[in-house]
């Protein structure tokens, strides 16, 4: 059993089954919190994928909003209501949005990459705010989706969207883990450390980085699609720099060592945000900031480094 769970696919499937079972016993407010954690966690997972190649996107709000708006418009204007189809469509639209910029951004590193992505997301924000047909700064609502052709009853809507978020994030987490352990995943890590060497070994660093950007965009779009379905409302704030900043916050909190840590970090953010906004309504961002400083001080490589380090020590003993 232990050996079976060491395989990322079976560990992921077991984790999903556990969370689906646990969800049936959770109160509605916590289900919503978990759904949003999973949706936002997928976006942050995309940033972690970029971080492994040595770049951080400060503009994932671009694809988060892109996926969200696409899904809301497909539901409202085209009558597409299936949640699974909409989730996939959100990812595809976001990836298509990222595609024209991928080759350009793949040439930049460090702060230049971060600022360019931030600029792109703020351009979208500006366009959304000024576009009256999309609700301007107020955004617009989206009706509740269906699942596999069935309407979702009010009493079950929270759980069904939670289950969808768990399954989608679980599948993407498994795929991300497979990718991180692949030849391309290892080369991404090498690019982070020594790009010159990778080029002299015959691999194209710009192609790897461009592919990473498009994959991260797909994840951002899927996250946006799940978030809009849970919230039932979308607005330009999805693309604002503070939203992108929260995704980066989760990525730093998680580190780039563990896929699971990204979702844990996302859940921690939602918890801290919920409770601190309830108890410190005017200073909750400060609480978040202090929390991040503590994590950076004591876990500079993120919370994922705790169990990766623990695993390494265990393997060293055996």
């Amino acid at each position: 059993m232990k050996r079976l769970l060491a395989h990322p696919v079976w560990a992921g499937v077991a984790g999903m089954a556990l969370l689906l079972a646990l969800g049936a016993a959770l109160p509605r407010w916590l289900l919503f919190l978990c759904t949003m954690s999973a949706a936002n966690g997928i976006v942050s997972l995309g940033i972690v994928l970029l971080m492994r190649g040595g770049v951080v996107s400060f503009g994932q709000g671009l694809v988060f909003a892109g996926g969200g708006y696409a899904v809301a418009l497909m539901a409202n204007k085209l009558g597409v209501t299936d949640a699974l189809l909409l989730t996939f469509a959100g990812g595809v639209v976001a990836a298509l949005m990222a595609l024209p910029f991928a080759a350009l951004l793949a040439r930049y590193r460090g702060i230049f990459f971060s600022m360019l992505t931030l600029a792109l997301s703020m351009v979208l924000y500006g366009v959304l705010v000024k576009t009256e047909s999309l609700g301007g700064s107020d955004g617009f609502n989206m009706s509740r989706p269906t699942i596999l052709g069935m309407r979702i009853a009010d009493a079950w809507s929270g759980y069904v969207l939670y289950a969808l978020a768990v399954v989608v994030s679980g599948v993407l987490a498994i795929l991300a883990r497979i990718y991180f352990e692949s030849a391309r995943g290892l080369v991404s890590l090498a690019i982070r450390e020594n790009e010159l060497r990778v080029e002299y070994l015959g691999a194209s660093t710009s192609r790897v980085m461009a592919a990473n950007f498009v994959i991260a965009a797909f994840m951002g779009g899927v996250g946006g699609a799940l978030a809009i379905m849970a919230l039932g409302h979308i607005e330009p704030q999805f693309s604002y720099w503070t939203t992108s900043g929260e995704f980066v916050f989760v990525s730093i909190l998680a580190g780039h060592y563990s896929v699971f840590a990204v979702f844990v970090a996302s859940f921690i953010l939602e918890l801290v945000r919920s409770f601190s906004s309830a108890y410190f309504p005017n200073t909750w961002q400060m609480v978040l900031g202090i929390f991040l400083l503590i994590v950076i001080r004591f876990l500079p490589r993120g919370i994922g480094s705790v169990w990766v380090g623990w695993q390494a020590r265990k393997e060293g003993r055996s």
Partner: protein
Amino acid sequence: MTPILSARGLNKRFGAVVAADHVSIDIVAGEHVSLIGSNGAGKTTFVNMITGYLKPDRGEIFLEGRDVTALGPRQITQLGVARSFQIPQLCAEMSVLDNMLVAAACGDGALSFWRPAHTRDKLDRAAALLERFGLHLHSRRRVAELPGGVRKLLDIAMALTHRPKILLLDEPTSGVSADEKFPMMDTVTAALGSEDVTVLFVEHDMDIVTRYASRVVAFYSGRILADGAPDQVLVDEEVKRYVTGSAH
């Protein structure tokens, strides 16, 4: 004999500095060619032009008869030219084995999104190469923890992963203690023994050049001053005056 590598009239200037001045050379397969010259003589510029890192202002480079002048480092590597660096270019936070697996992955053509980097086949190949370089005992160690000589060997081992036709070694013994230079070169030579590879190495130590080169090319002010067997080139008066500094 058809040369494996040809340079024709290479010129390269950096402002007022002439780094390559009508450099023409033919390298035949199987040769072990040492490039010598004082600092700024144009050796590294020549290596950088051969590997596509620098483009010559004028002149052409042919690899097995194919014009590669306009190609970049990646394309030239894919055509079978590998190199090591004066300062080893490694992934310092990764283990020695992972560095070898990076080299294996990079040379495999299309990088797989799902095929694991740590397959049994690749692990075995990496382990075998590490053993040839005497690095197998370090395979699990982080590169950042390794001494300079071991890093140099790893740099060369990585370059050899995909059985290149031409291997360029940029000062393989620089930064290595005098006692370690010959054992290190012996290790490299033994590791190359079974490979059908042409070697060009930049070197300042004339004892190393004498022992390990089959041909010596001496550079001075961006020009080739002398080219031939070590026992001819190293006694040349101009080479002694401008390169080795042993003229009386």
